[in-house]
């Protein structure tokens, strides 16, 4: 943080990651995230995040996801569920079922469970097939999820990005249209200002592989070196095999929403970028396991490698 920064943004920890939120317009220096939230706005943001966590967390036993994992039934989903599950349906199709919200049990098997056991409990477990496990009904009262057996959902591929969108929306409703919400790897800027985002080298956090300019957009980063608990063991799973992927090391995706940027950043480990770009309006960067750095032609920014 530069010493000339006068105001520090709001900072807190939530859903297992540090968050920072700054309020600022076109005059805010590039090096600054912006001014902090008021105490009321901060409290409202924390309450919104808590609500999302209570619905969607795989890591707490009082969540809706935990109840869905215990018994089959018809589950009324919260109002924020539809955009998230719609995106999952599109990602599932665009990756030939390699990206799925049903990898919860696969992650558990590999040791990434609610207790952070971090010890594989046997051979990799392919995720159950979507059509065998879930049916979504649109009803006047909202989205209903029908399950014939207990299923462990994991919205890790897009959930944090979506929450970044929801927090920004909440702040717009509270009269703050110009914000940057940075949830460690998932960032969205709203309003008139442009920000510059460094693409961190996943093997050296002091180095950037590039810089991307964002204006009224989101950028989400995903890396197999994040949340890794052993060589070859990390949180990005191919649902078909139940195994962690190994051909791609890190991805960064720019989109109009953090929901789409986060989901597609995960999908970039599992499918050809050209195919994803035919479905989603995104720009992207990928670091492959052989050291190559790839990027889309329309990316606004520069790469250093």
């Amino acid at each position, binding site marked *: 943080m530069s010493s000339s920064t006068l105001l520090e943004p709001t900072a807190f*920890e939530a859903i*297992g*990651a*540090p968050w920072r939120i700054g309020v600022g317009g076109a005059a805010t220096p*590039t*090096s600054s*995230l912006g001014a902090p939230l008021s105490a009321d706005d901060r409290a409202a943001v924390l309450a919104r995040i808590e609500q999302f966590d209570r619905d969607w967390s795989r890591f707490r036993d009082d969540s809706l996801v935990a109840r869905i994992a215990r018994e089959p039934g018809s589950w009324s989903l919260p109002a924020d569920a539809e955009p998230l599950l719609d995106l999952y349906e599109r990602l599932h199709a665009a990756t030939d079922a390699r990206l799925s919200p049903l990898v919860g049990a696969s992650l558990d098997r590999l040791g990434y469970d609610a207790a*952070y*056991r*971090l*010890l*594989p409990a046997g*051979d*990799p477990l392919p995720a159950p097939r979507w059509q065998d496990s879930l049916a979504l009904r649109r009803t006047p009262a909202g989205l209903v999820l029908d399950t014939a057996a207990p299923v462990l959902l994991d919205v890790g591929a897009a959930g944090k990005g979506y929450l970044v969108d929801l927090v920004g929306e909440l702040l717009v409703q509270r009269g703050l249209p110009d914000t*940057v919400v*940075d949830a*460690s*790897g*998932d*960032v969205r800027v709203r309003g008139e200002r442009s*920000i*510059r*985002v*460094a*693409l*961190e*080298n*996943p*093997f*050296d*956090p*002091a*180095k*950037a*592989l590039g*810089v991307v300019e964002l204006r009224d957009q989101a*950028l*989400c*980063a995903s*890396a197999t*070196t*994040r*949340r*890794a*608990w*052993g*060589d*070859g*063991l990390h*949180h990005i799973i191919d649902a078909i095999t139940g*195994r962690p992927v*190994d051909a791609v090391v*890190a991805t*960064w995706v720019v989109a109009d929403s953090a929901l789409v940027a986060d989901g597609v950043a995960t999908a970039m480990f599992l499918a050809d970028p050209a195919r994803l770009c035919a479905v989603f309006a995104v720009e992207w960067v990928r*670091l492959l*396991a*052989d*050291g190559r750095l790839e990027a889309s032609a329309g990316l606004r920014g520069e790469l*250093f*490698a």
Partner: protein
Amino acid sequence: MTRMMTGRARTTAARVAAPIGATAALLGTLTGCSTAAEAEVPVDASYRDGTYQANGTYESPNGSENIIVLIELENDIVTDVEITTNPNNPTTANYQGQFASGIGDLVIGEDIDQLDVTVVAGSSLTSNGFREAIAAIKADAVES
């Protein structure tokens, strides 16, 4: 300080030192070892300084593979993590080598401190999972 625990693999030779008794078990949960921990771990959760090692196996598409994990503890802080690979298969050797030698050697980039940026998007701020894992491993070593 989390930067020291980013998992950046290093290629330096492993230094395995005292304390002998506790070494094998500290990383048991990480690597699949089931050796019991040394019972001498003090109640105030102070661990003796030194390098702790564990061997582990995992199933890859090529079959069973081996890794050796070393953690260096200093004043109860993990100051270094090293993963040494011991692959049985040339394809795995290739992939493991790329990870263990650090792709950072090939793709380095520019110093973030020298760039005028608003946000850094990557792994340095998302080490909670890793910190929690280390905490779990230490708790396991105490309980065993």
